């Protein structure tokens, strides 16, 4: 059985093929000289009208104090709240009774970049970062240890602030 196609009849004055073709060609030709929207990525990482949001949640960064030690006090809140269970924390304690992380590792492959660790951290130590270039040659390299987290220099995320929902 033949397929029945519904055809909407247009007025004859609107059905010129050649004229439509020429119009289309004029349009495509005019586009040759228009401003290009391409961002030449490795050289350009942002344009006037496109920049990474300050709320971007990328790979983590551990902030350090004046002595260069991680601010983390190994309270255990971040592995507790982490929905992806990607933070490994083994707490230690020094002679003065200060807790510090013996092992602090984040598996960036497991991480879902929700930013809860940053929100929950009482010391403002762990942060998600405004950063997206994470290529590595080996899979193991995506488990960031404490030293590596402290060595990151990219800006940290501002996250979403309920009192300022539009980020102003």
């Amino acid at each position, binding site marked *: 059985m033949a397929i029945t*196609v519904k055809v909407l009849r247009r007025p004859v004055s609107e059905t*010129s*093929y050649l*004229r439509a073709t020429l119009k289309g*060609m004029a349009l*495509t*030709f005019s*586009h*040759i000289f228009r401003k290009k929207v*391409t961002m030449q990525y490795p050289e350009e990482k942002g344009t006037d009208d496109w920049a990474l949001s300050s709320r971007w949640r990328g790979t983590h960064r551990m902030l350090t104090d004046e002595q260069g030690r991680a601010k983390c006090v190994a309270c255990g809140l971040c592995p507790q709240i982490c929905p992806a269970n990607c933070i490994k924390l083994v707490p230690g304690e020094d002679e003065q009774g200060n807790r510090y992380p013996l092992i602090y590792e984040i598996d960036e492959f497991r991480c879902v970049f929700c930013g809860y660790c940053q929100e929950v951290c009482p010391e403002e130590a762990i942060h998600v970062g405004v950063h997206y270039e994470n290529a590595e040659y080996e899979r193991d390299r995506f488990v960031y240890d404490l030293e590596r987290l402290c060595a990151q220099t990219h800006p940290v995320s501002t996250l979403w602030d309920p009192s300022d929902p539009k980020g102003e």
Partner: protein
Amino acid sequence: MTFFLIASIVKLFVVFNVIMVGVALITWFERRVCAWMQDRLGPNRVGPFGLLQPAADGLKNMLKEETYPATADRWLFILAPVISFVPALLTFAVIPFGAPLPTKWGEVPLVVADLPVGFLYILAISSLGVYGIVLAGWSSNNKYALLGGLRASAQMISYEIAMGMSTVAVLLLMGNVTLSDIVAKQQGSIFLWNVFPLALAYFIFTVAAFAETNRVPFDLPEAEGELVAGYHTEYSSMKFSMFIIAEYSNMVTASALMATLFFGGWDIPFTAWDNAAPWSVLKTVATALAFLAKTGFFIFVYIWVRWTLPRFRYDQLMALGWKVLLPLALVYLTVIATAIWYLHDQLGWIYDTRFALTLFAVNMALAIPLFLVLDRGRLVSGSVERRSA
């Protein structure tokens, strides 16, 4: 004789390489132009302006795995890319691309083979290209490839007729099928370029040439939306590349043919300096550049149209070829033959600018009703209206 042989071999070598490099550059150019039309930049990383991109593509293609479908007809499968590739290059042999080059041993006409049957040779060879595509589709033993090959055969044979008919007008006016004579006859003035006395023939020829080279809007044999990749679905590696090279070589040849038949070949407009002996190297270079510019322009038109128009539906394609272009070419041929007979035999005019402009007026008189009336919903219509039973 020795001189003729050496000159021919050198010309063969030069033309082959120019076309191959040209094809590579056209793939780059096409990607750049398409990008510009879409407000992008296109490939600009490999080499200056991305000019080495084709080299990178070629290298990649050679390193790719060659796959053979288990049920394919192995020999035809290997042969098909060759069959589609060779005619594309053969056709260029008879196209004159510059003024004769004077050398110490004699004049070298800048055409690989100045065949007396020139144009007939082109018609004969260019229709061979379809075999490559049909065989590729058939030998793959793949339904999509077969459909692509089938469409290619139907389409190329249909438009071959309109193309041949449109060029009969050229042959009537020129009285010769040798391409170098056709070029020579167009050299007197820009109005002697056949595009003026035979404007409609040029129009039909262009449309048919687009269909012959399987380019958008007539690229139904590929039709990736419905046929995966059409006739070259099963091809990989350099064999796939051969089809692309064949397509672009066909484009070069068709563009060169448009330039030769309708735009004075290697003639430089607005000057008679390039038309006559004594020949010099400067004249040769200048005319070759003029030919290159004309051919390049038509290649640009090919690309321009490709990135503007959508693809025809199969029935639209057939309707346009058989119901519009063929009758149009026949009617046009009748009118133009009558006009030539009247002007030449009855009024005794010789072929000059006045003759050409009179024919141009005849063309315009035909074109206005054609483009204002026939174009309205009849050239390409929507699907045929059917009431459900």
